[in-house]
Protein backbone atom coordinates (compact mmCIF):
# COMPACT_ATOMS: atom_id res chain seq x y z
CA UNK A 1 0.00 0.00 0.00
CA UNK A 2 1.45 3.38 -0.97
CA UNK A 3 1.31 6.56 1.08
CA UNK A 4 -1.22 9.30 0.28
CA UNK A 5 0.35 11.89 2.54
CA UNK A 6 3.75 12.18 4.12
CA UNK A 7 4.29 14.65 6.94
CA UNK A 8 7.90 15.65 7.56
CA UNK A 9 8.76 17.34 10.84
CA UNK A 10 5.80 19.67 10.40
CA UNK A 11 5.44 22.74 12.58
CA UNK A 12 2.39 24.95 12.15
CA UNK A 13 2.21 28.14 14.17
CA UNK A 14 0.23 31.29 14.75
CA UNK A 15 2.43 34.29 15.43
CA UNK A 16 5.44 31.98 15.99
CA UNK A 17 3.69 30.01 18.74
CA UNK A 18 3.55 26.41 17.51
CA UNK A 19 0.18 24.68 17.51
CA UNK A 20 1.39 21.57 15.74
CA UNK A 21 4.95 20.91 16.85
CA UNK A 22 7.47 18.76 14.92
CA UNK A 23 4.95 16.23 13.67
CA UNK A 24 6.11 13.44 11.37
CA UNK A 25 4.24 10.50 9.95
CA UNK A 26 2.76 8.82 6.95
CA UNK A 27 -0.87 8.27 5.98
CA UNK A 28 -1.58 5.33 3.71
CA UNK A 29 -3.87 5.44 0.75
CA UNK A 30 -7.29 4.23 1.82
CA UNK A 31 -6.59 4.92 5.49
CA UNK A 32 -9.39 5.94 7.83
CA UNK A 33 -7.71 8.09 10.45
CA UNK A 34 -9.26 9.84 13.41
CA UNK A 35 -7.50 12.87 14.90
CA UNK A 36 -8.29 13.36 18.59
CA UNK A 37 -7.01 15.58 21.35
CA UNK A 38 -7.87 18.49 23.63
CA UNK A 39 -9.15 21.88 22.46
CA UNK A 40 -6.33 23.93 21.08
CA UNK A 41 -4.33 20.77 20.49
CA UNK A 42 -3.77 21.53 16.82
CA UNK A 43 -6.30 19.18 15.19
CA UNK A 44 -7.99 21.73 12.96
CA UNK A 45 -4.66 23.45 12.33
CA UNK A 46 -3.22 20.17 11.10
CA UNK A 47 -6.05 19.84 8.57
CA UNK A 48 -5.45 23.41 7.40
CA UNK A 49 -1.80 22.58 6.94
CA UNK A 50 -2.62 19.46 4.94
CA UNK A 51 -5.03 21.29 2.65
CA UNK A 52 -2.53 24.12 2.23
CA UNK A 53 -4.63 26.88 3.80
CA UNK A 54 -1.86 27.48 6.35
CA UNK A 55 1.80 27.60 5.35
CA UNK A 56 4.07 25.59 7.64
CA UNK A 57 6.67 27.49 9.65
CA UNK A 58 8.86 24.40 9.55
CA UNK A 59 8.87 21.02 7.79
CA UNK A 60 6.47 20.12 5.01
CA UNK A 61 3.50 18.09 3.88
CA UNK A 62 4.04 15.88 0.87
CA UNK A 63 0.80 15.25 -1.01
CA UNK A 64 1.36 12.10 -3.02
CA UNK A 65 -2.21 11.13 -3.89
CA UNK A 66 -3.26 14.45 -5.43
CA UNK A 67 -2.44 18.15 -5.41
CA UNK A 68 -3.75 20.44 -2.66
CA UNK A 69 -6.76 21.75 -4.56
CA UNK A 70 -8.06 18.26 -5.27
CA UNK A 71 -8.35 17.55 -1.52
CA UNK A 72 -11.92 17.75 -0.27
CA UNK A 73 -12.04 19.67 3.01
CA UNK A 74 -15.01 20.28 5.26
CA UNK A 75 -14.00 22.94 7.81
CA UNK A 76 -15.36 23.02 11.34
CA UNK A 77 -17.30 26.24 10.75
CA UNK A 78 -17.72 26.73 7.01
CA UNK A 79 -18.05 30.44 6.31
CA UNK A 80 -21.14 30.02 4.16
CA UNK A 81 -23.31 33.13 3.81
CA UNK A 82 -26.62 31.47 4.64
CA UNK A 83 -28.61 34.50 3.47
CA UNK A 84 -27.30 34.14 -0.08
CA UNK A 85 -30.17 33.35 -2.46
CA UNK A 86 -29.24 29.90 -3.72
CA UNK A 87 -31.09 26.59 -3.51
CA UNK A 88 -29.82 23.23 -2.30
CA UNK A 89 -29.33 21.83 -5.81
CA UNK A 90 -27.08 24.68 -6.95
CA UNK A 91 -25.20 24.67 -3.66
CA UNK A 92 -24.40 20.96 -3.97
CA UNK A 93 -23.60 21.33 -7.68
CA UNK A 94 -20.72 23.64 -6.71
CA UNK A 95 -18.89 20.41 -5.90
CA UNK A 96 -18.46 19.96 -9.66
CA UNK A 97 -16.35 23.15 -9.91
CA UNK A 98 -13.14 21.39 -10.78
CA UNK A 99 -14.69 19.77 -13.84
CA UNK A 100 -16.98 22.62 -14.97
CA UNK A 101 -14.92 25.68 -13.96
CA UNK A 102 -16.02 29.25 -14.72
CA UNK A 103 -18.24 28.54 -17.72
CA UNK A 104 -18.98 24.83 -18.20
CA UNK A 105 -22.53 23.55 -18.00
CA UNK A 106 -23.64 20.45 -16.12
CA UNK A 107 -23.89 17.34 -18.25
CA UNK A 108 -26.74 14.90 -17.76
CA UNK A 109 -24.51 12.56 -15.78
CA UNK A 110 -23.31 15.40 -13.61
CA UNK A 111 -26.89 16.49 -12.88
CA UNK A 112 -27.74 12.92 -11.98
CA UNK A 113 -24.77 12.80 -9.63
CA UNK A 114 -26.01 15.94 -7.87
CA UNK A 115 -29.37 14.26 -7.27
CA UNK A 116 -27.62 11.10 -6.09
CA UNK A 117 -25.46 13.06 -3.66
CA UNK A 118 -28.50 14.87 -2.27
CA UNK A 119 -30.27 11.52 -1.90
CA UNK A 120 -27.35 9.89 -0.13
CA UNK A 121 -27.40 12.51 2.62
CA UNK A 122 -31.15 12.02 2.94
CA UNK A 123 -32.26 15.37 1.57
CA UNK A 124 -34.31 14.23 -1.43
CA UNK A 125 -37.13 16.72 -1.91
CA UNK A 126 -35.04 19.63 -0.64
CA UNK A 127 -33.51 20.43 -4.05
CA UNK A 128 -35.45 23.66 -4.54
CA UNK A 129 -35.22 24.89 -0.95
CA UNK A 130 -33.17 28.06 -0.40
CA UNK A 131 -30.25 27.26 1.91
CA UNK A 132 -31.42 30.00 4.28
CA UNK A 133 -34.41 27.81 5.26
CA UNK A 134 -32.34 24.80 6.34
CA UNK A 135 -31.56 23.83 9.92
CA UNK A 136 -27.96 23.60 11.09
CA UNK A 137 -27.84 19.82 10.70
CA UNK A 138 -29.47 19.92 7.28
CA UNK A 139 -26.93 22.49 6.15
CA UNK A 140 -24.13 20.20 7.31
CA UNK A 141 -25.64 17.43 5.20
CA UNK A 142 -25.73 19.76 2.18
CA UNK A 143 -22.02 20.41 2.67
CA UNK A 144 -21.46 16.67 2.89
CA UNK A 145 -23.31 16.18 -0.39
CA UNK A 146 -21.15 18.81 -2.05
CA UNK A 147 -18.09 17.04 -0.73
CA UNK A 148 -19.28 13.78 -2.31
CA UNK A 149 -19.29 15.38 -5.76
CA UNK A 150 -15.69 16.50 -5.43
CA UNK A 151 -14.69 12.87 -5.91
CA UNK A 152 -11.48 13.54 -4.00
CA UNK A 153 -8.74 10.99 -3.27
CA UNK A 154 -8.14 12.67 0.10
CA UNK A 155 -11.02 13.82 2.29
CA UNK A 156 -10.61 15.92 5.44
CA UNK A 157 -13.52 16.40 7.85
CA UNK A 158 -13.30 18.73 10.84
CA UNK A 159 -15.79 17.69 13.53
CA UNK A 160 -18.37 16.87 10.88
CA UNK A 161 -20.94 15.41 13.26
CA UNK A 162 -21.40 18.37 15.57
CA UNK A 163 -25.06 19.32 15.93
CA UNK A 164 -26.20 16.37 13.88
CA UNK A 165 -28.80 13.88 15.12
CA UNK A 166 -28.00 10.20 15.76
CA UNK A 167 -29.76 8.87 12.69
CA UNK A 168 -27.95 11.24 10.35
CA UNK A 169 -24.61 10.51 12.00
CA UNK A 170 -24.98 6.81 11.30
CA UNK A 171 -26.03 7.53 7.71
CA UNK A 172 -23.03 9.79 7.19
CA UNK A 173 -20.76 7.20 8.79
CA UNK A 174 -21.92 4.69 6.21
CA UNK A 175 -20.77 7.14 3.55
CA UNK A 176 -17.41 7.49 5.27
CA UNK A 177 -17.05 3.71 5.31
CA UNK A 178 -17.93 3.45 1.63
CA UNK A 179 -15.14 5.93 0.84
CA UNK A 180 -12.76 3.56 2.49
CA UNK A 181 -13.71 0.74 0.20
CA UNK A 182 -13.17 3.14 -2.71
CA UNK A 183 -9.56 3.55 -1.52
CA UNK A 184 -10.03 7.18 -0.57
CA UNK A 185 -7.93 8.50 2.29
CA UNK A 186 -10.13 9.94 5.03
CA UNK A 187 -8.97 12.03 8.00
CA UNK A 188 -11.58 13.06 10.53
CA UNK A 189 -11.22 15.31 13.58
CA UNK A 190 -13.48 13.94 16.32
CA UNK A 191 -14.18 14.33 20.02
CA UNK A 192 -16.45 11.33 20.49
CA UNK A 193 -13.93 8.68 21.56
CA UNK A 194 -16.54 5.90 21.62
CA UNK A 195 -17.31 6.62 18.00
CA UNK A 196 -13.62 6.61 17.18
CA UNK A 197 -13.14 3.24 18.85
CA UNK A 198 -16.13 1.81 17.00
CA UNK A 199 -15.41 3.06 13.49
CA UNK A 200 -11.83 4.23 13.02
CA UNK A 201 -9.01 1.69 12.74
CA UNK A 202 -6.31 4.33 13.23
CA UNK A 203 -5.99 7.34 15.47
CA UNK A 204 -3.62 10.25 15.91
CA UNK A 205 -3.73 11.73 19.40
CA UNK A 206 -2.52 15.29 19.15
CA UNK A 207 -1.86 17.79 21.93
CA UNK A 208 0.44 20.24 20.15
CA UNK A 209 2.99 17.41 20.21
CA UNK A 210 2.13 13.99 18.88
CA UNK A 211 1.09 11.91 21.89
CA UNK A 212 0.51 8.70 19.96
CA UNK A 213 -0.25 7.58 16.43
CA UNK A 214 -1.26 4.08 15.41
CA UNK A 215 -3.95 1.49 15.90
CA UNK A 216 -6.89 3.08 17.71
CA UNK A 217 -7.00 0.55 20.55
CA UNK A 218 -3.33 1.22 21.38
CA UNK A 219 -3.51 4.99 21.01
CA UNK A 220 -6.59 5.58 23.12
CA UNK A 221 -5.24 3.95 26.28
CA UNK A 222 -5.62 5.72 29.63
CA UNK A 223 -1.96 6.78 29.91
CA UNK A 224 -1.99 8.49 26.51
CA UNK A 225 -5.30 10.21 27.21
CA UNK A 226 -3.95 11.46 30.51
CA UNK A 227 -0.83 12.94 28.98
CA UNK A 228 -2.94 14.58 26.26
CA UNK A 229 -5.05 16.17 28.97
CA UNK A 230 -1.95 17.62 30.62
CA UNK A 231 -1.23 19.88 27.65
CA UNK A 232 -0.96 23.49 28.71
CA UNK A 233 -3.47 25.34 26.63
CA UNK A 234 -2.17 28.89 26.98
CA UNK A 235 0.79 30.12 25.02
CA UNK A 236 3.87 30.84 27.07
CA UNK A 237 4.63 34.50 26.41
CA UNK A 238 8.15 34.01 27.66
CA UNK A 239 8.76 30.96 25.47
CA UNK A 240 12.28 30.58 24.12
CA UNK A 241 13.02 29.77 20.54
CA UNK A 242 12.68 26.06 19.87
CA UNK A 243 16.03 24.28 19.78
CA UNK A 244 14.81 21.21 17.90
CA UNK A 245 16.05 22.17 14.46
CA UNK A 246 15.23 19.78 11.67
Amino acid sequence: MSAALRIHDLTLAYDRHPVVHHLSGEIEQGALLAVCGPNGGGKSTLLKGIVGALQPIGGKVERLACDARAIAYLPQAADVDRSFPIDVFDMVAMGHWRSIGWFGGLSKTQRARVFDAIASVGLTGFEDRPIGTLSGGQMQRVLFARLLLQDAPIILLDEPFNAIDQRTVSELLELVNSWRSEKRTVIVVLHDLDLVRRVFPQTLLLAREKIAWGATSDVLCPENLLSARRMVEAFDREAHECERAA
Partner: protein
Amino acid sequence: MFYDLLIAPFIEFEFMRRALVGACALALAGSPLGVFLLLRRMSLTGDAMAHAILPGAAVGYLIAGLSLPAMTIGGLAAGLSVALLSGLVARFTALREDASLAGFYLMSLALGVTILSLRGSSVDLLHVLFGNVLALDEDTLLFLAGVATFTLLALAAGYRALAMETLDPGFLSSVSKAGGPAQVLFLSLVVLNLVAGFHALGTLLAVGIMILPAASARLWSPDITRMTLIAAVIGLVSSAAGLLLSYHFNLPPGPLIVLTAGGWHVASMIFGLSGGYLRRLPPRRHLEA
Protein backbone atom coordinates in the same frame (compact mmCIF):
# COMPACT_ATOMS: atom_id res chain seq x y z
CA MET B 1 -51.87 65.24 -22.09
CA PHE B 2 -50.20 61.85 -21.72
CA TYR B 3 -48.12 62.61 -24.79
CA ASP B 4 -47.12 66.06 -23.52
CA LEU B 5 -46.09 64.74 -20.14
CA LEU B 6 -44.21 61.59 -21.03
CA ILE B 7 -43.25 61.54 -24.70
CA ALA B 8 -42.95 65.07 -26.03
CA PRO B 9 -39.86 66.13 -24.08
CA PHE B 10 -37.88 63.27 -25.59
CA ILE B 11 -39.25 63.84 -29.12
CA GLU B 12 -38.62 67.55 -29.08
CA PHE B 13 -35.20 67.82 -27.48
CA GLU B 14 -32.13 65.95 -28.51
CA PHE B 15 -30.40 66.54 -25.17
CA MET B 16 -33.27 64.73 -23.45
CA ARG B 17 -32.88 61.73 -25.74
CA ARG B 18 -29.16 61.63 -25.10
CA ALA B 19 -29.74 61.91 -21.38
CA LEU B 20 -32.23 59.06 -21.51
CA VAL B 21 -29.85 56.77 -23.39
CA GLY B 22 -26.97 57.61 -21.07
CA ALA B 23 -28.97 57.12 -17.89
CA CYS B 24 -30.44 53.85 -19.17
CA ALA B 25 -26.99 52.50 -19.98
CA LEU B 26 -25.86 53.30 -16.45
CA ALA B 27 -28.96 51.76 -14.91
CA LEU B 28 -28.66 48.54 -16.94
CA ALA B 29 -25.04 47.87 -16.02
CA GLY B 30 -25.49 49.20 -12.51
CA SER B 31 -28.31 46.87 -11.48
CA PRO B 32 -26.41 43.55 -11.45
CA LEU B 33 -23.42 45.27 -9.86
CA GLY B 34 -25.71 46.72 -7.22
CA VAL B 35 -27.22 43.30 -6.53
CA PHE B 36 -23.77 41.83 -5.92
CA LEU B 37 -22.70 44.80 -3.79
CA LEU B 38 -25.81 44.18 -1.73
CA LEU B 39 -25.26 40.42 -1.44
CA ARG B 40 -21.63 40.96 -0.48
CA ARG B 41 -22.71 43.48 2.17
CA MET B 42 -20.73 46.13 0.38
CA SER B 43 -23.52 48.65 -0.20
CA LEU B 44 -21.45 51.36 1.44
CA THR B 45 -18.28 50.28 -0.35
CA GLY B 46 -19.74 51.65 -3.57
CA ASP B 47 -20.11 55.00 -1.90
CA ALA B 48 -16.56 54.93 -0.56
CA MET B 49 -15.21 54.01 -4.00
CA ALA B 50 -17.13 56.89 -5.53
CA HIS B 51 -15.34 59.29 -3.20
CA ALA B 52 -12.03 57.65 -3.96
CA ILE B 53 -12.36 58.42 -7.67
CA LEU B 54 -12.39 62.17 -7.10
CA PRO B 55 -8.64 62.98 -6.98
CA GLY B 56 -7.99 61.05 -10.19
CA ALA B 57 -10.73 62.92 -11.98
CA ALA B 58 -9.42 66.14 -10.45
CA VAL B 59 -5.88 65.56 -11.72
CA GLY B 60 -7.30 64.80 -15.16
CA TYR B 61 -9.26 68.03 -14.96
CA LEU B 62 -6.22 69.98 -13.83
CA ILE B 63 -4.18 68.75 -16.77
CA ALA B 64 -6.72 68.81 -19.55
CA GLY B 65 -9.79 70.68 -18.33
CA LEU B 66 -13.22 69.09 -18.71
CA SER B 67 -11.95 66.34 -20.98
CA LEU B 68 -13.57 62.93 -21.11
CA PRO B 69 -10.45 60.76 -21.61
CA ALA B 70 -8.30 62.60 -19.08
CA MET B 71 -10.89 62.55 -16.31
CA THR B 72 -11.85 58.97 -17.08
CA ILE B 73 -8.31 57.66 -16.99
CA GLY B 74 -7.58 59.65 -13.84
CA GLY B 75 -10.72 58.40 -12.13
CA LEU B 76 -10.05 54.79 -13.08
CA ALA B 77 -6.48 54.99 -11.84
CA ALA B 78 -7.49 56.51 -8.52
CA GLY B 79 -10.42 54.12 -7.97
CA LEU B 80 -8.49 50.99 -8.87
CA SER B 81 -5.48 51.91 -6.76
CA VAL B 82 -7.63 52.60 -3.71
CA ALA B 83 -9.43 49.29 -4.23
CA LEU B 84 -6.16 47.44 -4.67
CA LEU B 85 -4.34 49.15 -1.80
CA SER B 86 -7.15 48.56 0.67
CA GLY B 87 -7.28 44.92 -0.42
CA LEU B 88 -3.54 44.57 0.17
CA VAL B 89 -3.65 46.35 3.52
CA ALA B 90 -6.50 44.11 4.65
CA ARG B 91 -4.43 41.10 3.67
CA PHE B 92 -1.08 42.04 5.15
CA THR B 93 -1.91 44.09 8.24
CA ALA B 94 -4.25 43.72 11.19
CA LEU B 95 -6.74 46.20 9.69
CA ARG B 96 -9.89 44.78 8.17
CA GLU B 97 -11.02 45.68 4.70
CA ASP B 98 -13.65 48.21 5.78
CA ALA B 99 -11.22 50.13 7.96
CA SER B 100 -8.47 50.20 5.36
CA LEU B 101 -10.91 51.22 2.64
CA ALA B 102 -12.26 54.02 4.82
CA GLY B 103 -8.72 55.23 5.45
CA PHE B 104 -7.77 55.32 1.79
CA TYR B 105 -10.96 56.84 0.47
CA LEU B 106 -10.86 59.65 3.02
CA MET B 107 -7.26 60.48 2.08
CA SER B 108 -8.24 60.27 -1.55
CA LEU B 109 -11.25 62.53 -1.14
CA ALA B 110 -9.32 65.18 0.76
CA LEU B 111 -6.60 65.09 -1.87
CA GLY B 112 -9.20 65.44 -4.61
CA VAL B 113 -10.84 68.49 -3.08
CA THR B 114 -7.41 70.09 -2.57
CA ILE B 115 -6.46 69.51 -6.18
CA LEU B 116 -9.75 70.90 -7.43
CA SER B 117 -9.28 74.05 -5.39
CA LEU B 118 -5.93 74.68 -7.10
CA ARG B 119 -7.68 75.63 -10.25
CA GLY B 120 -11.27 75.81 -11.09
CA SER B 121 -14.35 77.70 -10.20
CA SER B 122 -17.10 76.29 -8.04
CA VAL B 123 -19.05 75.58 -11.23
CA ASP B 124 -16.45 73.03 -12.26
CA LEU B 125 -16.49 71.49 -8.82
CA LEU B 126 -20.24 71.17 -9.03
CA HIS B 127 -19.92 69.52 -12.41
CA VAL B 128 -17.58 66.87 -11.07
CA LEU B 129 -19.55 66.33 -7.89
CA PHE B 130 -22.99 66.22 -9.49
CA GLY B 131 -22.40 65.55 -13.19
CA ASN B 132 -24.52 66.86 -15.99
CA VAL B 133 -26.67 64.30 -17.69
CA LEU B 134 -28.20 66.95 -19.96
CA ALA B 135 -24.86 67.80 -21.53
CA LEU B 136 -23.70 64.39 -22.70
CA ASP B 137 -21.82 64.68 -25.99
CA GLU B 138 -21.37 61.98 -28.61
CA ASP B 139 -18.13 60.63 -27.14
CA THR B 140 -19.44 60.45 -23.60
CA LEU B 141 -22.56 58.68 -24.77
CA LEU B 142 -20.54 56.10 -26.68
CA PHE B 143 -18.34 55.67 -23.62
CA LEU B 144 -21.34 55.05 -21.36
CA ALA B 145 -22.85 52.55 -23.79
CA GLY B 146 -19.49 50.82 -24.22
CA VAL B 147 -18.98 50.53 -20.47
CA ALA B 148 -22.48 49.10 -20.02
CA THR B 149 -21.94 46.50 -22.75
CA PHE B 150 -18.55 45.50 -21.44
CA THR B 151 -19.84 45.31 -17.86
CA LEU B 152 -22.71 43.01 -18.73
CA LEU B 153 -20.48 40.69 -20.77
CA ALA B 154 -17.74 40.60 -18.13
CA LEU B 155 -20.24 39.94 -15.34
CA ALA B 156 -21.79 37.12 -17.33
CA ALA B 157 -18.33 35.58 -17.71
CA GLY B 158 -17.39 35.95 -14.05
CA TYR B 159 -20.84 35.27 -12.64
CA ARG B 160 -20.35 31.77 -11.29
CA ALA B 161 -17.01 32.45 -9.67
CA LEU B 162 -18.28 35.70 -8.18
CA ALA B 163 -21.41 34.06 -6.82
CA MET B 164 -19.35 31.27 -5.25
CA GLU B 165 -16.87 33.75 -3.83
CA THR B 166 -19.73 35.63 -2.23
CA LEU B 167 -21.51 32.53 -0.95
CA ASP B 168 -18.62 30.42 0.32
CA PRO B 169 -15.17 31.97 -0.16
CA GLY B 170 -13.46 29.25 1.87
CA PHE B 171 -14.75 26.51 -0.40
CA LEU B 172 -13.85 28.35 -3.60
CA SER B 173 -10.32 28.96 -2.41
CA SER B 174 -9.96 25.30 -1.46
CA VAL B 175 -10.87 24.10 -4.95
CA SER B 176 -9.49 26.83 -7.21
CA LYS B 177 -7.66 30.09 -7.56
CA ALA B 178 -10.65 31.83 -9.12
CA GLY B 179 -11.59 33.76 -5.97
CA GLY B 180 -8.98 36.50 -6.27
CA PRO B 181 -9.53 37.22 -9.98
CA ALA B 182 -13.31 37.22 -9.51
CA GLN B 183 -13.01 39.76 -6.70
CA VAL B 184 -10.67 41.99 -8.70
CA LEU B 185 -12.91 41.78 -11.77
CA PHE B 186 -15.93 42.78 -9.72
CA LEU B 187 -14.28 45.75 -8.00
CA SER B 188 -12.85 46.93 -11.32
CA LEU B 189 -16.30 46.84 -12.88
CA VAL B 190 -17.70 48.83 -9.96
CA VAL B 191 -14.98 51.45 -10.37
CA LEU B 192 -15.45 51.54 -14.15
CA ASN B 193 -19.18 52.13 -13.77
CA LEU B 194 -18.71 54.78 -11.14
CA VAL B 195 -16.29 56.60 -13.44
CA ALA B 196 -18.79 56.30 -16.29
CA GLY B 197 -21.52 57.39 -13.92
CA PHE B 198 -19.86 60.57 -12.76
CA HIS B 199 -20.08 62.15 -16.21
CA ALA B 200 -23.83 61.87 -15.99
CA LEU B 201 -24.70 61.86 -12.31
CA GLY B 202 -21.51 63.07 -10.63
CA THR B 203 -19.17 61.17 -8.34
CA LEU B 204 -21.47 61.36 -5.36
CA LEU B 205 -24.69 60.21 -6.98
CA ALA B 206 -23.35 57.67 -9.47
CA VAL B 207 -23.55 55.00 -6.82
CA GLY B 208 -27.24 55.78 -6.24
CA ILE B 209 -28.35 54.20 -9.50
CA MET B 210 -26.50 51.02 -8.49
CA ILE B 211 -27.57 50.57 -4.90
CA LEU B 212 -31.12 51.94 -4.69
CA PRO B 213 -32.67 49.71 -7.41
CA ALA B 214 -30.83 46.66 -6.05
CA ALA B 215 -31.90 47.29 -2.47
CA SER B 216 -35.49 47.82 -3.63
CA ALA B 217 -35.41 44.65 -5.70
CA ARG B 218 -34.35 42.61 -2.66
CA LEU B 219 -37.68 43.57 -1.08
CA TRP B 220 -39.60 42.06 -3.99
CA SER B 221 -37.80 38.76 -4.53
CA PRO B 222 -35.19 36.65 -2.76
CA ASP B 223 -34.12 35.07 -6.06
CA ILE B 224 -30.91 36.47 -7.51
CA THR B 225 -32.00 36.39 -11.18
CA ARG B 226 -35.32 38.02 -10.48
CA MET B 227 -33.63 40.54 -8.19
CA THR B 228 -31.33 41.60 -11.02
CA LEU B 229 -34.22 41.91 -13.50
CA ILE B 230 -36.36 43.89 -11.07
CA ALA B 231 -33.42 46.15 -10.24
CA ALA B 232 -32.85 46.82 -13.94
CA VAL B 233 -36.51 47.71 -14.48
CA ILE B 234 -36.54 50.02 -11.46
CA GLY B 235 -33.31 51.64 -12.66
CA LEU B 236 -34.65 52.21 -16.18
CA VAL B 237 -38.00 53.56 -15.01
CA SER B 238 -36.30 55.85 -12.48
CA SER B 239 -34.01 57.21 -15.19
CA ALA B 240 -36.89 58.12 -17.49
CA ALA B 241 -39.11 59.39 -14.69
CA GLY B 242 -36.32 61.42 -13.12
CA LEU B 243 -35.51 63.11 -16.41
CA LEU B 244 -39.18 63.96 -17.01
CA LEU B 245 -39.59 65.36 -13.52
CA SER B 246 -36.49 67.45 -13.96
CA TYR B 247 -37.80 68.73 -17.30
CA HIS B 248 -41.27 69.64 -16.07
CA PHE B 249 -40.22 71.18 -12.77
CA ASN B 250 -36.99 72.67 -14.01
CA LEU B 251 -34.83 70.91 -11.41
CA PRO B 252 -31.39 69.29 -11.81
CA PRO B 253 -31.75 65.85 -13.48
CA GLY B 254 -29.07 63.81 -11.66
CA PRO B 255 -30.49 64.18 -8.17
CA LEU B 256 -34.01 63.68 -9.47
CA ILE B 257 -33.11 60.36 -11.09
CA VAL B 258 -31.66 59.15 -7.81
CA LEU B 259 -34.59 60.62 -5.86
CA THR B 260 -37.04 58.74 -8.09
CA ALA B 261 -35.13 55.54 -7.41
CA GLY B 262 -35.35 56.53 -3.74
CA GLY B 263 -39.13 56.83 -4.07
CA TRP B 264 -39.27 53.29 -5.41
CA HIS B 265 -37.14 52.20 -2.52
CA VAL B 266 -39.46 53.69 0.10
CA ALA B 267 -42.46 52.12 -1.65
CA SER B 268 -40.67 48.77 -1.73
CA MET B 269 -39.86 48.96 1.97
CA ILE B 270 -43.56 49.31 2.70
CA PHE B 271 -45.18 47.12 0.06
CA GLY B 272 -42.38 44.70 -0.92
CA LEU B 273 -43.63 41.13 -1.26
CA SER B 274 -40.43 39.65 0.10
CA GLY B 275 -39.71 41.23 3.45
CA GLY B 276 -41.57 44.54 3.08
CA TYR B 277 -43.14 46.03 6.20
CA LEU B 278 -46.79 45.33 5.40
CA ARG B 279 -45.97 41.74 4.53
CA ARG B 280 -44.70 41.23 8.05
CA LEU B 281 -47.53 42.90 9.92
CA PRO B 282 -50.43 40.54 10.65
CA PRO B 283 -49.29 37.00 11.26
CA ARG B 284 -51.43 34.85 9.01
CA ARG B 285 -52.66 31.48 10.26
CA HIS B 286 -49.90 28.96 10.39
CA LEU B 287 -49.70 25.82 8.31
CA GLU B 288 -49.86 22.25 9.45
CA ALA B 289 -46.33 21.18 8.46
